[in-house]
């Protein structure tokens, strides 16, 4: 009985000796039995452990308590989750969400289908936000210097300050925020600035693009050229773009005419991976290409057919340019794209950071209020923000964490998490969402609204009133209550799209000139600009292409590596414009030659226990004049080595056909030619056994490789849904990551510019499951609906099933991961999905097709005596997928979507020749080459 073993481990844990021992055990870097004391205590425990191992079987189940409410909320049915609509911000832009809440505990975030920026899907940051909510390391109390203070004491201070401001119109009062779209907050700021005309508001957003990109209708584009523009990658509009793009790449959905994607970029991006043609060029070359494109002069030979293709489809073609390209080129592109523009570029306002810094130096600033952000960490290094901040006498910070910026401020106010507060925000297209709290602030945080109200001398009002008042002002009239409720319920404010939105912090144009090695800055695909650095889920999420976890690296091309005699894990000094950063090297096929890409967001010093000291800080090289990189980089080998923890050591397909790719043309000529290759799966009759009939439902899954953009959200959605533990860098390095669905990444062809393939791999739920055959205790067996069941509490941990699984999708609890530093914090127990068992040490686990969801739906349907509808059951991965690449359903029902997918000639089973008869199958990936380009 695993609960017994738990208890026995508890008994051990209570011994202090053992506890700090465990501390030293994790990370397992620390040696187990170095010093005398622990060795002695060890011998004690060793004795105990034998006793316990014996006693385990002989203890009665302990008595548990059941604790009812005192007053039970009306709409709450104990044991049944509730869903609330809200929104989360990325660089200020809202992505609508639905939050699942169990007895008042938010446990899971899904996209809100009503919301234009999520369309029911989600990105990795949305999924991980739930962990951020409970993060035990968020700042918990108002601090004044080293003193623990209170909100009231702070208000007292504000009162004094206001007297001063009243007298001088707020000279020296400065507001520094990230990018804000919240209508309420904007109006609050406006009010403040009106009251104190001499006060000023500055905006800093580390990843803000130079000029706001309009939003285009990718779904209508026949031809797309993306230059250094990762529109399928993480970003405020990623989910919409991915959905629209994928909708034009489905051979099954009747769309016989694919769109065509050309990508030229310096470092592989999700967009590049999906391209029909990809060109790896350094920033300089890209700039030249851009100019050539705009001027139609001196276009490289490979560019000619592209331009032709674009021109042929003018009006139905897009040129999407990255920020590093010059304004002229971007203007040219904007004009070109106008026909497909769906959302206006948002007007810029607000004062720049450079101006702010001048005022700081000039000593013009007396009181600085920093709302969120983390400028001390992520402002351009040439601003020397951190050291100059001391010139400001009074520094007030509202922040989620005691981070680098907080460390420099006297007054530090704990900020409430978006899931804890009333607020609102706009999506990229202006659609407003009213954000409602799911839970009382866990750590007594305050929202920006409450702080602004306080500054405006109106400290008493609650966040709720502030937001409500704002919207009441927008929608006067007696049906406001209805309007309000509807907006809350739907998660979008009707007709708010295109509404007035907020400033972008403009950053000066990138200089793409000079010579020598080039440096390219990119946000980290996992932790973005560093704001998610303390989120263990994201840190452990294998980054696309490199599959590195818990690190960033200097990405260089194979050729460059050869030239500089560098190999993976070599540590080098990056010397750039008189600054130096020490970084480990990773050789990335598809990276442009003589160009080094570094991911921002790492090397945090005040992120928290999870994020501190992970990777190196690339901001230390990032200057205000060239935020996306530039020339003049020097690499000096140090001779040191830095081990990476990657989850995929082998990225060549070894001539095997796990990912099957063809062209649209091939497919249209011989539909079977693309997917039905290699050794065929044995037919159903080629068996000595009596085939097992699955009479009722037969659950199955189809994954469309043609749609997958490799965004990783399935992995993290699964982690959130199934209580999958984080194991830490050491364990990942040992090959013990626990993700139930992994996104395999293969490179095909020449290493300088290979084709890149993604392949999400969950459990295949084979009908002839090899794993089941070898389990000595029947801990894994087949259900009557064809699920490959894994019963944790029966598992004895022989691990034979994993050995015999050709897909290696099974995961083993080599240690008591639930007790490691990433999981052990008591508050994290609130995060657990109550419908999924938390696994103990020594048991196997794997993808269950989210059986808890299947059972929930089945029970509801049974209670209503009706059949289960197609699409009613959605596993976490499928629900999160922005490209709708994962389809789940009943393959016995010919009308179901999954059955239709599986009927497609593109459908194939992974390693089906082993006669495992997988229930999870794949749809081959189709490319749409340009006949002319083929000629050249």
């Amino acid at each position, binding site marked *: 009985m*695993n609960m017994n*073993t738990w208890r026995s481990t508890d008994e*051990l844990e209570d011994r202090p000796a053992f506890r700090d021992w465990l501390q030293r*055990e994790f990370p397992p870097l620390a040696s*187990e*039995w170095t010093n005398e004391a622990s060795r002695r205590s*060890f*011998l004690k425990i*060793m*004795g105990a*452990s*034998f006793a*316990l*191992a014996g006693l385990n*079987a002989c203890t009665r189940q302990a008595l548990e308590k059941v604790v009812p409410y005192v007053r039970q909320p009306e709409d709450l049915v104990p044991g049944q989750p509730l869903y609330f609509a809200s929104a989360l911000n990325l660089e200020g832009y809202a992505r609508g969400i639905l939050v699942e809440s169990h007895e008042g505990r938010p446990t899971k975030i899904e996209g809100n289908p009503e919301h234009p920026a999520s369309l029911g899907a989600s990105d990795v940051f949305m999924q991980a936000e739930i962990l951020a909510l409970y993060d035990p390391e968020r700042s918990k109390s108002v601090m004044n210097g080293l003193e623990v203070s209170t909100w009231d004491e702070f208000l007292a201070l504000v009162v004094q300050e206001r007297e001063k401001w009243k007298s001088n119109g707020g000279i020296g009062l400065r507001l520094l925020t990230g990018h804000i779209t919240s209508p309420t907050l904007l109006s609050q700021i406006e009010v403040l600035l009106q009251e104190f005309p001499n006060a000023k508001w500055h905006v800093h957003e580390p990843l803000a693009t130079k000029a706001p990109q309009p939003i285009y209708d990718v779904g209508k584009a026949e031809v797309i050229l993306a230059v250094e523009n990762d529109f399928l990658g993480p970003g405020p509009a990623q989910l919409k773009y991915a959905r629209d793009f994928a909708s034009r790449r489905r051979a099954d959905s009747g769309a016989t005419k694919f769109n065509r994607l050309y990508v030229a970029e310096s470092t592989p991006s999700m967009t590049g991976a999906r391209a029909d043609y990809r060109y790896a060029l350094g920033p300089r070359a890209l700039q030249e290409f851009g100019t050539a494109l705009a001027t139609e002069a001196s276009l490289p030979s490979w560019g000619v057919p592209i331009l032709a293709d674009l021109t042929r489809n003018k009006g139905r073609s897009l040129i999407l340019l990255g920020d590093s390209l010059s304004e002229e080129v971007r203007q040219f592109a904007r004009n070109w794209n106008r026909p497909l523009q769906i959302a206006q570029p948002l007007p810029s306002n607000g004062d720049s950071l450079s101006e702010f810094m001048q005022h700081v130096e000039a000593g013009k600033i007396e009181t600085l209020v920093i709302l969120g952000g983390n400028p001390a960490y992520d402002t351009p290094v040439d601003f020397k923000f951190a050291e100059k901040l001391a010139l400001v006498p009074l520094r007030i910070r509202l922040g989620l964490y005691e981070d680098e910026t907080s460390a420099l401020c006297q007054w530090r106010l704990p900020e409430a998490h978006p899931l804890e507060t009333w607020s609102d925000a706009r999506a990229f297209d202006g659609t407003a969402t009213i954000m409602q709290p799911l839970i009382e602030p866990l750590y007594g945080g305050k929202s920006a609204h409450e702080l602004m109200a306080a500054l405006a001398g109106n400290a008493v009002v609650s966040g709720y009133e502030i937001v409500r008042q704002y919207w009441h002002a927008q929608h006067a009239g007696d049906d406001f209550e209805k309007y309000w409720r509807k907006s809350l319920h739907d998660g979008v404010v009707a007709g708010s799209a295109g509404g007035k939105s907020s400033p972008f912090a403009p950053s000066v144009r990138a200089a793409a000139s000079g010579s020598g090695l080039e440096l390219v800055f990119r946000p980290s695909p996992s932790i973005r600009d560093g704001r998610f650095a303390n989120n263990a889920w994201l840190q452990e999420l294998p980054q696309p292409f490199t599959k590195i976890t818990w690190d960033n690296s200097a990405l260089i091309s194979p050729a460059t590596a050869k030239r500089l005699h560098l190999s993976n894990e070599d540590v080098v000094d990056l010397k750039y414009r008189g600054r130096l950063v020490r970084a480990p090297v990773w050789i990335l096929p598809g990276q442009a030659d003589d160009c080094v890409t570094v991911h921002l967001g790492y090397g945090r010093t005040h992120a928290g226990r999870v994020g501190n000291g992970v990777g190196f800080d690339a901001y230390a090289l990032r200057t205000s004049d060239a935020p996306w990189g530039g020339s003049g980089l020097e690499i000096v080998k140090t001779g040191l080595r830095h081990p990476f923890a990657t989850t995929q*050591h*082998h*990225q060549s397909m*070894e*001539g095997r056909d*796990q990912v099957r790719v063809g062209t649209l043309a091939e497919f249209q000529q011989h539909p079977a030619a693309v997917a039905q290759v290699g050794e065929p799966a044995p037919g159903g009759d080629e068996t000595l056994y009596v085939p097992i009939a699955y009479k009722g439902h037969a659950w199955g899954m189809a994954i469309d490789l043609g749609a997958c953009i490799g965004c990783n959200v399935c992995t993290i959605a699964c982690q959130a849904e199934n209580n999958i533990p984080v194991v830490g860098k050491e364990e990942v390095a040992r*090959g013990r990551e626990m993700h139930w669905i992994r996104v395999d*990444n*293969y490179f095909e062809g020449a290493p300088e510019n290979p084709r890149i393939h993604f*392949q999400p*791999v969950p459990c295949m739920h084979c009908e002839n499951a*090899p794993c089941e*055959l*070898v*389990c*000595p*205790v*029947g801990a894994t067996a087949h259900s009557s609906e064809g699920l490959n069941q894994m019963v944790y509490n*029966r598992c*004895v*941990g*022989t*691990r*034979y099933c*994993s*050995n*015999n699984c*050709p*897909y*290696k999708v*099974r*995961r*083993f*609890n*080599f*240690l*008591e991961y639930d007790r490691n530093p990433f999981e052990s914090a008591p508050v994290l127990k609130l995060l657990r999905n109550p419908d999924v068992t938390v696994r*103990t*040490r*020594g*048991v*196997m686990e794997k993808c269950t097709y989210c059986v808890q969801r299947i059972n929930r739906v089945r029970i509801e349907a049974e209670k209503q005596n009706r059949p289960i509808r197609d699409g009613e059951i959605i596993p976490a991965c499928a629900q999160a997928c922005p490209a709708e690449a994962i389809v789940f359903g009943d393959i016995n029902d010919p009308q179901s979507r999954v059955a239709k997918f599986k009927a497609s000639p593109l459908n194939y089973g*992974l*390693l089906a020749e*082993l006669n495992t008869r997988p229930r999870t199958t794949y749809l081959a990936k189709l490319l749409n080459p340009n006949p002319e380009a083929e000629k050249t």
Partner: protein
Amino acid sequence: MNVPDETPVVAPGYDSGSVTRKITDVVLARPLGRGWLAGFAFAFALLMLLNFAIGWLLIRGVGIWGINIPVAWGFAIVNFVWWIGIGHAGTFISAILLLLHQDWRTSINRFAEAMTLFAVACAGLFPLLHLGRPWVFYWLLPYPDTMGLWPQWRSPLVWDVFAVSTYATVSLMFWYVGLIPDLATMRDRSAPRPLQFIYGVMALGWRGSARHWKRFKMAYLLLAGLATPLVLSVHSVVSLDFAVAIVPGWHSTIFPPYFVAGAIFSGFAMVLTLLIPVRKAYGLQDFITIRHLENCAKIMLATGLMVAHGYITEMFMSWYSDDKFDIYMTLNRMFGPYAPAWWLLMFCNVLVPQALWFKSIRTNPAILFVLALLVNVGMWTERYVIVVTSLHRDFLPSAWGIYHPTRWDWMTLIGSFGLFLSLLFLFLRLLPAISITEMGKLVLDKKESRQQ
């Protein structure tokens, strides 16, 4: 039977009485030697190391080992297969050679059987330890539980449980039955009352009655008859742990015979490794003669060749099957990250035994000893190669991994030697290491055959 041209299996000039005296004196008359004490102390220290490693294992879990996904089996299974293999020589000698009337076996079968028991004890340890939750090992046994669940009979691991436990039980009984008359002798020869008493209890009051002897011989013969197919089945079942799986490098029909051959191969290597020092230390050269060593060497040569044949067949089949996974596996063994291990095993198991073609080497204890040691290493490496290299790169390149043993892996392996040696030292000290009755009979028969 007599083989005039060869060195005798017993040096001339012994009658049953002197044989008895010489053997029993090893235990009864000989004082507690410094050598024995030192040896035992060393073995016991290793045993404590094992204890230590196991304790930590139970507290922290199998994660302290180097295993991972994909290589979910490591040292534990390698050691298990290796030890169980070593166990096979004992039964082979005492059962199969008995049925074949190889009378030279008499002077070494007792010792070999003891070795078998201890090896099986070591082997039995590992399947338990390698479980993620060892405290529920009993779920592998059929018993009427409150869950309504049973073992999953299609799993080779369950077959293992039955095969190994049967093997252990039968070997133990075989060994003990053979001991009974000798225990009677010990009872009657030992002076101090307590000793007499202990041996007396163990001898069950054996008095050498003719009727008893008749039944005894019959039972012993039948046990031998049963042990023979058993010993073959046990390692076949062990090999099925691999052969039943679909992993390239495991999924092969040649495994059972080639594992059995390998087992006997390594078993005899271990017999030599132990006999050569022991016969010297206890001056038993007259009973354990060069002839014995040479015969063991011959068997090693034969089984070694079978093993080599196994290797070749494996490689041939993976080429002949034209299965891309299998071919890759074979090449990966030769040239992949674990190539050194593969070449080492080829050297130890294929090349080294060829030296045994030469009588001069077969009859040179010193060289034989070194040779046997090499074979022991080789056979361990073979299992390592089979377990690890097959797993670390199977079907999907994306799931390929690498395995490095941790210090806890090594401790457990080395510790198991401690267990083995401790038991062996105690055995040498407390029980007649050579079958007295059979030797007595043997010298008598020899005398008769000489008289004729």
